[in-house]
């Protein structure tokens, strides 16, 4: 919670600085965004580990395939060579699209976390909340990056999420929760990787950090 609020505050500072003096460099913006995305993925991994600690064996068999993630339709570079060929603004829009696609599902996860049939429910609940804050902060920060980079913000892909609830019984709810979380974990890694590529591309003057 503290981390999320801190990062939110950090991004707010960024916004203030941007609005007031317009002196925050792109490097710093991207650096900050990378830190936020790093935190995002770290949280999701931690949540997954918490869930896995007491996952019913039968649930593993019921786990849907990752290709069923609602963001799987988004075309992204799958390896480094492909990624190196993608231009910056496209990378940025990919990151932003993914981020946008997860705001609703995370809200669902957040609401479901409190009633999970899991012994680590409280921890999961708090981390989910933190995740939500983090996403909002990162989204706002990326908005500024977009403005700084001057790229248009209208080529975002929409990735609709149609889930209203996670299931009827507690097991299926737990399984679906786990599945959603795993999809999010992967997508957060994508966002993080793209932003860090963008960071190093923008920081050509500082080779020591890249």
């Amino acid at each position, binding site marked *: 919670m503290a981390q999320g609020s801190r990062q939110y505050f950090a991004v707010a500072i960024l916004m203030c600085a941007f609005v007031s003096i317009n002196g925050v460099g792109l490097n710093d913006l991207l650096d900050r965004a990378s830190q936020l995305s790093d935190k995002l993925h770290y949280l999701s991994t931690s949540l997954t580990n918490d869930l896995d600690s007491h996952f019913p064996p039968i649930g593993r068999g019921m786990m849907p395939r990752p290709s069923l993630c609602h963001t799987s339709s988004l075309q992204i570079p799958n*390896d480094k060579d492909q990624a190196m060929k993608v231009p910056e603004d496209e990378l940025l829009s990919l990151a932003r699209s993914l981020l946008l696609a997860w705001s609703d599902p995370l809200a669902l996860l957040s609401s479901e976390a409190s009633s999970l049939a899991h012994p680590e429910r409280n921890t999961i609940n708090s981390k989910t909340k933190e995740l939500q804050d983090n996403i909002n902060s990162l989204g706002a920060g990326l908005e500024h990056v977009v403005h700084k980079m001057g790229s248009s913000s209208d080529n975002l892909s929409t990735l609709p999420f149609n889930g209203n609830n996670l299931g009827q019984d507690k097991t299926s709810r737990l399984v679906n929760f786990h599945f959603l979380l795993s999809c999010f974990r992967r997508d957060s890694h994508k966002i993080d990787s793209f932003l860090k590529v963008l960071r190093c591309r923008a920081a050509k003057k500082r080779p020591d950090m890249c």
Partner: protein
Amino acid sequence: MRISAAVLILTLIADLISQAAGVSPPGKPRLTSCRSPEKETFTCWWEPGDDGGLPTTYALYYRLENTETVKECPDYKTAGENSCFFDKNATSLWVNYNITVVATNALGRNISEPVEVDVVYIVQPNTPENVKAVVIHEDRDPFVKVSWDKPRTADTRSGWITLHYQLRVKQEEDKEWVEYDAERQKNYNVFSLHSDREYMVQVRCKPDHGFWSEWTQTTYVKMPNYIPRERSLWIMITIFSVFIVFILTWMLKVKHNSVKLCLLPPVPGPKIKGFDKQLLKSGKSEEVFNSLVIPGFPPTTDYDDLLVEYLEVYDNEEQELVLDGKDLSEDSMKSKSPSDSDSGRGSCDSRTLLLDKCMEGSGNDQHNYSQHGETSWASSSECSESQGSPGSPESTDGRMKTWPVVFSSPQPHHHYQVGATKPAYHSVPEILKHSPSHAIPSNYHQLYLQDIPPQEGRFTKPPCRHSQSYNQFNMDNVDISEAGVPPSRSLEYVEVQRVNPENILLLRPLSDPNREPEGSDRIDEDYSKVKEVTSNNTLLLQRETSHQVVNDYSQDFESYADQCTAQQTPHPCKPVMTQLHSQDMRVMGNGYVDTTVLMPLYKQF
């Protein structure tokens, strides 16, 4: 039917034979780990199961999550035994690999458990390379700068992978390593290493979301032999402060007296001779006060001491006055011989008799003065120059010093009967003795008989002009003698003009006709008034506490310059001397012991 039965029987027999021979199908292999060093390729390793005694082959098959195609491992060799290396083309990120290993031998095959692998979650970089540790000698204490390079395969330049570094240091004999985080830098400064020791250094790295690499090979670094700056600084500080302490001690020693005086000024203790503290503690005030009374105290001839208390100073020469008095008293105490140069001096010669200046007067007087040496008369007081008329009042300028003069007997042994107070005028009797006797001027009469009106103070103040009279010891001051005694004044002093060779104390009243008698009652308490001079050459003192005259006589005085009767004076010469006994001492209304009453007055004519 018969064939299947035969096959069955043959298989059984074969199994039995093979079991008897010790061969079996392979055991189940197990995928141990898959790792990607740079997020571009990855390798999987498996653990073969029991081979069943027969040559067994292993095959790894994988399937990407979105497809149904099962592919076999493209490279079994690169990564070594029982491994499968996926090159860049075969590697896709953010997709799950379903990997299985199949062990096959002559008797059968075995399939391992499937493993789901996402390449981005299995990143473990290679170790950092080219670790260097050098000792840097700069202005400060030497430290070690450790530097390294990134693992060759990791592409941090494009940001595809971000590495965090960590190093650890220890001495050979230490048990625990000390770890330092270098974040994303490729160098690190290690401080606080001990001098003249050898240290081991190792480095490793980790991607932002992955596993730590292995530690590098140990790099050795030797710290040089040096004295820590901090210690040398403390040594210098210590030496410097010791030096300062020495200097301060020496200074204190040299000047300890003045320092002591400055810090602990001496507190003068109250001392009253004859005062017994013990008596006071006992709480009986009568005893205390009685003990203060000493027979023979005060010395009859030392009334000039007491006169000090009645010093009335009008100008800033008081300081000089007091000082003079002090000196004089000391001198008097020291020298008891009448020939003492500074003793026995009359008012003129006495420096403490801050009467009118004994200015340069007549020559013979000067001569007399010279007998005594000092003449601080001229300097002691600055009377007004208006010394024309004898009877004129004291100098009107405020600079006249008036001095109540108590006449003391010429008996030297009386001088110091009381050792308590240093008489300012102790010299008076000596003066009397020394000075050549002269005829008592008639002014004496005037002094004593006329110049002391009852309501006046006991002592008459000789007018300022008396300085002149001092100079002229005897009769030259006829004019002065004619000077009428000034009307009663608040303070009446008799001024010792001079001590003539005959040890006659010539007194002159300090008269100030301009002055009104003021508070004569008050004065009465403080001073004794000479009433008359008896035939015994004793001054009859008038003690007036309530306008009553109390005459006390003292017969103790032995020798008086009996010049009174010998001289022609317009008034009867009545040497008056009073010596009050102890019981005659009175405690005056204002709380003071009226020691003046005790003082014998001696008057000679």
